[in-house]
């Protein structure tokens, strides 16, 4: 497989862009055509991805499993920025997630957005998002990644605020954009720091400091030690470790890790297909993918990896606890997504890219499925509160059964997709190179919490009596077919990574990426005792959840009263939003007011007004000279002549003396 296949990779990238242009600019009035164009753009991407992936997996011994195709983009002196596509197993797997989850969601949107005013705009934005996301996936260098990173942020903003008549949607869009700015600031700083310090090394000459492949080759040759020695320590860290952590900041923002996770739950204001595609399956996973792509930056620094793992573990646990008390079905799923993203980041920190990408892939399918199911439920009940649902099992059989499949995968019922990927993360925490007992406990407890909140949500939504208004009915086929389409991979995709099949993981093993993503040597072992412990935790959480909300053997209201402070803490999301508001309203506003005071009084009243007053006063004084009387002028002329003559005589006298 070589660069002769590059047109296919370019097609993956540009088919959605063409679709966005056509849908957004040309066929705004013809809704059906706009949707058809968007869906076919995505389908072209999916087909090209499948073809390239087949070629990569089918590559024989000694044959490359990927290629890079670059064109020069900006050339300015010694600086060259390239624009290109990389097609290796890592990027193709991610592209498969984006297009494979994206295509059914596009189809589903045809039904979900039916009758909406912004139908054409929706498909244009969604296609723009697909283009931006695939741009990150196929990017060959840091600058290109950053550009598409921001484009993804833009399309996210456009789609969260899609119903811009609703204030909460507008606010949520702004919040997502601004919180991401914080992370992106770190990302950009990291890129600049890394490129600047690498480019200044003589041994780096001839390489491009932005390019993943060049940087990775340099790091593999031990360049990071040289880099650490050549530059001074900043903030007590060697420069390459600091650059790695700064780049991780970008992932913290985009993948909504603690403490920048606050935007993701609010992002659920967007239409449900958007939540499914961007805020569950693909965009929020971009951070995890990016860390995998630049994993070589982290690899030499165990402390950096440790920090990554702990941020992930903290996010996983915290989000799972908040999900326990949410009553909005999409918020439950949003916090669940946060929690699973934390799992992925923890996996990358503990075991490297393979485990993280594996969980990313399985999660993308089952979480997109769960979101689409919730969309179907919301479509039927016209409400998002699970307290106003119930008993939908009979009214919506397709939605119910696919939801059960998605829940089983999320809860990690043995045999479903989530089971294998979660097991691999727990195995990494228990037996991996950077094994950590506290993180293993976090992982297990989170697994239990996950089962609890998912069964609570399932019980309240689909069992018991219907508590809402009207008569809910099953969604049309254009919405239920994508559910079944996603249910299949949600059940089965995990088997691709099952260690006992296919001689270890053929997909997640071997030469995984052109940047030399680290993989475990030899077949990955399957740890039966650990799998049993993990399943036991999940089962305990699930049974407890069912006892409280399904069978109602335990009185939920009484326990809520008993644990009221805890319940308040969780339902207010650990008061983090309040804390940020305080930070902005009190601290930042205070600083702003001080600056404003300084500006108004010192700069404007002192410097600016002072200067103008001085000019005015001197003008007023000088104007007295202009009397209009010829006699005055003559006197001035005379005085001037006397001065000149005096000066001439004096200087002549001094010259004579000298």
């Amino acid at each position, binding site marked *: 497989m070589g660069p002769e296949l590059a047109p296919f990779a370019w097609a993956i990238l540009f088919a959605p862009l063409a679709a966005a242009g056509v849908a957004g600019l040309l066929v705004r009035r013809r809704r059906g055509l706009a949707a058809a164009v968007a869906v076919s753009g995505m389908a072209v991407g999916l087909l090209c991805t499948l073809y390239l992936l087949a070629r990569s997996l089918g590559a024989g011994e000694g044959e490359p499993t990927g290629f890079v195709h670059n064109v020069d983009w900006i050339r300015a002196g010694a600086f060259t920025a390239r624009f290109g596509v990389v097609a290796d197993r890592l990027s193709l797997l991610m592209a498969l997630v984006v297009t494979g989850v994206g295509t059914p969601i596009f189809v589903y949107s045809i039904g979900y957005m039916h009758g909406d005013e912004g139908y054409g705009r929706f498909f244009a934005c969604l296609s723009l998002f697909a283009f931006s996301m695939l741009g990150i996936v196929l990017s060959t260098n840091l600058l290109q990644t950053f550009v598409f990173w921001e484009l993804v942020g833009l399309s996210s903003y456009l789609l969260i605020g899609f119903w811009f008549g609703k204030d909460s949607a507008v606010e949520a869009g702004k919040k997502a954009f601004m919180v991401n700015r914080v992370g992106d600031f770190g990302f950009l700083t990291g890129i600049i720091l890394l490129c600047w310090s690498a480019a200044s090394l003589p041994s780096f000459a001839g390489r491009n400091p932005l390019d993943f492949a060049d940087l990775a080759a340099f790091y593999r040759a031990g360049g990071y030690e040289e880099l650490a020695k050549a530059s001074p320590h900043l903030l007590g860290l060697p420069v390459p470790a600091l650059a790695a952590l700064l780049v991780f900041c970008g992932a913290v923002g985009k993948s909504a890790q603690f403490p920048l996770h606050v935007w993701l739950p609010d992002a659920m204001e967007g239409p449900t297909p958007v939540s499914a595609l961007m805020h569950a399956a693909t965009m929020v996973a971009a951070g995890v993918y990016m860390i995998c792509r630049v994993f070589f930056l982290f690899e030499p620094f165990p402390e950096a990896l440790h920090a990554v793992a702990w941020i992930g573990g903290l996010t996983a646990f915290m989000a799972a606890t908040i999900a326990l008390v949410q009553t909005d079905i999409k918020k439950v799923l949003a916090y669940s997504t946060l929690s699973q993203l934390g799992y992925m980041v923890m996996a990358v920190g503990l075991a490297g890219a393979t485990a993280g990408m594996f969980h990313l892939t399985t999660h993308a399918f089952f979480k997109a499925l769960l979101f689409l199911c919730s969309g179907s439920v919301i479509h039927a009940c016209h409400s998002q509160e699970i307290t106003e649902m119930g008993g939908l099992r009979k009214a919506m059989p397709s939605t119910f059964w696919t939801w059960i499949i998605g829940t089983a995968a999320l809860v990690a019922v043995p045999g479903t997709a989530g089971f294998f990927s979660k097991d691999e993360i727990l195995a990494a925490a228990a037996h991996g190179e950077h094994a950590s007992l506290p993180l293993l406990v976090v992982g297990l407890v989170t697994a239990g919490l996950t089962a609890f909140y998912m069964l609570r949500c399932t019980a309240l939504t689909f069992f018991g009596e219907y508590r809402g208004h009207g008569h809910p009915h099953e969604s049309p086929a254009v919405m239920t077919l994508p559910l079944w389409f996603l249910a299949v991979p949600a059940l089965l995709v995990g088997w691709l990574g099952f260690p006992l099949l296919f001689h270890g993981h053929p997909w997640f093993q071997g030469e995984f990426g052109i940047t030399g993503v680290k993989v475990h040597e030899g077949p990955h072992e399957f740890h039966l005792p650990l799998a049993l412990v993990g399943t036991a935790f999940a089962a305990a959480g699930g049974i407890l959840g069912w006892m409280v909300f399904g069978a109602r053997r335990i009185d939920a209201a009484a326990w809520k009263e008993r644990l009221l402070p805890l319940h308040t803490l969780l339902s207010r999301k650990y008061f983090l939003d309040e804390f940020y508001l305080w930070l902005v309203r009190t601290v930042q506003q205070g600083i702003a007011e001080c600056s404003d005071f300084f500006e108004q009084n010192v700069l404007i009243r002192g410097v600016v007004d002072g200067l103008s007053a001085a000019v005015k006063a001197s003008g007023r004084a000088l*104007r007295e000279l*202009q009397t*209009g009387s*010829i006699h005055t002028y003559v006197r001035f002329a005379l005085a001037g002549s006397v001065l000149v003559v005096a000066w001439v005589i004096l200087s002549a006298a001094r010259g004579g003396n000298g």
Partner: protein
Amino acid sequence: MTPLLAALPPVTVQHYLLLSGLLFAVGLVGVLFRRNIIIVLMCLELMLSAANLAFVAFSRVHGNLQGQVMVFFSIAVAAAEAAVALSIIIALYRARGGVDVEDAAEMKG
């Protein structure tokens, strides 16, 4: 005549310069203190003549013609200046019915 003249001290360049300075001072005082614009103009002419006299005196001392040539220029310029000045004075008189310089102070800032 001759003995009388011989009895007087010889006329030197200093005498010319003294006369020139006196003429200049008289002219300057007139320009500074007289209010009638015609007198002012005449005093200006007086100052010019003082300068011309000094030129001619130096020409005589140095024994060349440069000073006298300069005086011809000066007289020509003075004639032109007098023509312009007199027309301005006529215009001024027509405009305000008087020739007092202190009255024409519209340019006061």
